[in-house]
């Protein structure tokens, strides 16, 4: 089941990576923005709120410190009280100026300005009280003093309010900070969960759609079923693909070989068809000529010279007949009449057939035979044709003191398995490498009277028996033909 619909793996991975990156970047941006906000807030608290509250406290204290000096002066007339009062007034004004310097909200500024104005009125009034005391008008002074006292308390109230407002500001800043922190934590948790989900999803896709297929592919790509080499999945796949490529190379070269073979066999089929047509057309008049020759020979008396001429004509006719027969043999598909035979019997038959020819060429035959050879399934007549061909070739190649060794043995051959091998080794002149290549091809012959089809037909017959015919030769060291046939399994 594909819950993803159409998108290909790359699109999926990029989509999830994008989501994952967006989550991470989102988390980062949120953190930076919040950090900035915190920084601003702390700055404000440090630069504005803390100096403001400090000033507010000092204003309250210095105001409170001004209390009582006029009264002391009224009681003992000592001017040091007035000095002290003026010191505290200076301190008060200093802090008031400090507070006014701080950047504040209009509400606080109004409050401060109210305090400033009120304090100016209060100082003026208070100085009048002191002046009245100095002038000795105690009664009027005292009356005014009571009024000024009211103003003092109002001022004190205002200073306290200013301080409270500032404390409230800090309190608010703290609460805002706490709320922000809360929001930031929630956002972080959401982002972390998202990142976790996307990460798991990415891992899932990587494993299920890339790693697992790679592992499966490497397992399936094992060419010869060899065990997995150590290493990671990609290295394993690389090894497998490398193996497959080698396999492809091998297959390609096999294909090329078989194409070549096919072309060759197509060519041969055409040549075969052509030669059959030609051979058939020739054979008919040849039969007629032969009949007439036979009749002539029977009916007339010839002189010695005429007899010799006649014999040459007859011999050449026989040779023509042989060539035509070879051509027909070459083109005719063999119908194998296979039966279970001992290959030695066929060798025996061949040697019987060639008895006189071996005598004529004075060739000695040496036989080497293993004790008990397995049977093979073959057409004895066709095999005999092959053996005769090889033996006649050997006889004709050997110049003096000819010897042909026929070895029959059991063997295990490549692509065949258990096999019966027959070797024909002669002590003739051998063949050059160039000749060895050509001699198994059709129409290649070293003999002035040959058709160049004998060995080609021999190879074909052996192949039709599921066997192989190989040629080993060195110039001056004789030639060996090795024929390998699949052995019948013993029942």
């Amino acid at each position, binding site marked *: 089941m594909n819950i993803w619909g159409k998108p290909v793996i790359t699109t999926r991975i990029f989509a999830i990576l994008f989501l994952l990156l967006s989550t991470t970047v989102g988390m980062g941006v949120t953190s930076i923005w919040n950090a900035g906000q915190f920084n601003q807030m702390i700055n404000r608290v440090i630069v504005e709120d803390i100096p403001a509250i400090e000033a507010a406290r000092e204003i309250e204290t210095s105001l409170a410190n001004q209390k009582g000096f006029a009264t002391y002066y009224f009681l003992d007339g000592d001017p040091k009280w007035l000095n002290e009062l003026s010191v505290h007034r200076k301190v008060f004004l200093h802090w008031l100026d400090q507070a006014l310097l701080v950047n504040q909200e209009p509400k606080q500024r109004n409050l401060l300005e109210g305090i400033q104005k009120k304090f100016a009125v209060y100082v003026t009034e208070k100085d009048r009280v002191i002046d009245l005391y100095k002038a000795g008008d105690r009664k009027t002074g005292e009356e005014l003093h009571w009024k000024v006292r009211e103003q003092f308390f109002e001022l004190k109230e205002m200073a306290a309010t200013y301080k409270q407002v500032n404390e409230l500001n800090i309190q608010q800043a703290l609460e805002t900070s706490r709320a922000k922190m809360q929001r930031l934590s929630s956002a972080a948790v959401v982002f972390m969960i998202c990142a976790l989900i996307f990460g798991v999803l990415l891992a899932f896709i990587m494993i299920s759609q890339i790693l697992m297929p790679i592992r499966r592919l490497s397992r399936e790509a094992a060419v010869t079923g060899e065990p997995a080499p150590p290493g990671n999945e990609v290295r394993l796949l690389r090894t497998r693909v490398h193996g497959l490529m080698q396999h492809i190379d091998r297959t390609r070269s096999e294909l090329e070989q078989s194409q070549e073979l096919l072309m060759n066999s197509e060519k041969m089929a055409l040549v075969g068809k052509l030669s059959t047509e030609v051979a058939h057309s020739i054979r*008919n008049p040849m*039969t*007629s000529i032969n009949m*007439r*020759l*036979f009749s002539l020979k029977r009916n007339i008396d010839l002189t010695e010279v005429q007899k010799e001429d006649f014999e040459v004509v007859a011999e050449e006719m026989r040779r023509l007949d042989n060539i035509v027969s070879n051509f027909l043999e070459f083109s005719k598909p063999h119908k194998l009449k296979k039966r279970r035979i001992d290959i030695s019997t066929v060798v025996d038959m061949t040697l019987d057939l060639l008895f006189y020819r071996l005598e004529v060429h004075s060739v000695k035959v040496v036989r080497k035979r293993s004790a008990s050879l397995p049977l093979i399934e073959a057409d004895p007549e066709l095999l005999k044709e092959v053996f005769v061909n090889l033996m006649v070739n050997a006889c004709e190649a050997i110049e003096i003191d000819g010897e042909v060794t026929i070895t029959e043995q059991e063997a295990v051959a490549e692509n065949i398995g258990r096999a019966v091998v027959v070797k024909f080794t002669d002590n003739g002149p051998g063949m050059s490498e160039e000749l060895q290549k050509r001699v198994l091809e059709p129409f290649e012959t070293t003999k002035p009277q040959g058709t160049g089809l004998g060995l080609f037909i021999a190879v074909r017959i052996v192949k039709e028996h599921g066997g192989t015919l190989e040629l080993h030769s060195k110039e001056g060291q004789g030639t060996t033909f090795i024929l390998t046939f699949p052995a019948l399994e013993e029942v």
Partner: protein
Amino acid sequence: MGSTGVILIADPNPFVRSFLSRELKTAGYQTAEAGTSREIVNYLHSGHLPALMIMELDFPIAVGMNVLNRIHDLVPTVPHIIYTHLTEYENSSEAKKADAFIEKNDDPDELFQTIDAVLARYQSKKPLR
């Protein structure tokens, strides 16, 4: 042996036909010749059934088995000897219906002996017309 009837020699090569005809006539037989499958069929349709047929299988156009099949259909009782170099047909079912199958070579003696033998066998079974 002159009274045994006509031997039809069917062969595409006129020189083979004339040679066989000459030799058979010398031996006392009557002969007729056919060089194509059409001539064979014409002869068989003319109302003269031969006493024996000597057949080559290698006729142009109507090759081998086709001619033989036609003859088997037309005159199934006429004895015939296949005399040919197409030895690959020797074991075919059609060729096995023939009275003899002889490979054509330079010595016609085997053919002549077989003709005598086949005719003798047929004459002993039933008298010819």
